[in-house]
């Protein structure tokens, strides 16, 4: 059995300012959304806005999307890959457009990049019609807010 020791209240330590634990994110690396994150977002989308819950094809295609994003150059190209691939996939039963939008917008903010388009109607129109845009067009739209 491991020995358990009780620590006493430490007055000197209490006087010191609280130090935040170090951030786990590496500032030199790009953050990519995990399987868990993707699934959570899809579940929230269905719970809040309706649709069918659960998987259709499952997570296998998502792993390929992440690999494709990792091998692409530039944060907006990576984001374009995530946005289009998730939106046009059949990972889940439902909610791909909503899930891809939230995952991509989070991806950009977490990696210190701006989602430029602010006009709600333009965003809705673009995401609904995402199939007809090329990766270059999506990348430009994410970066500049225009095609």
């Amino acid at each position, binding site marked *: 059995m491991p020995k358990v020791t009780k620590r006493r209240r430490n007055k000197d330590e209490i006087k010191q300012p609280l130090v935040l634990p170090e951030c786990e994110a590496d500032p030199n690396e790009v953050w990519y959304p995990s399987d868990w994150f993707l699934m959570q977002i899809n579940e929230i989308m269905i719970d809040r806005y309706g649709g069918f819950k659960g998987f259709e094809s499952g997570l296998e295609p998502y792993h390929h999307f992440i690999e494709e994003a990792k091998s692409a150059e530039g944060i907006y190209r990576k984001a374009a890959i995530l946005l289009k691939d998730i939106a046009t996939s059949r990972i889940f*039963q*439902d909610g791909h457009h909503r899930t891809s939008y939230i995952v991509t917008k989070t991806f950009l903010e*977490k990696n210190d990049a701006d989602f430029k388009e602010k006009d709600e109607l333009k965003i809705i129109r673009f995401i609904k019609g995402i199939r007809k845009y090329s990766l270059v067009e999506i990348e430009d739209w994410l970066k500049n807010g225009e095609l």
Partner: protein
Amino acid sequence: MANCKDPMDIALRIIKQDDRILSALNNGHGKSKKR
């Protein structure tokens, strides 16, 4: 590149802020609802 923000915190804030966009994205798109 990656900052220290919690991704789920970011996502939840965006969801609240973009409620109208998300509601609109659920209209008539995605898989067939016939079962």
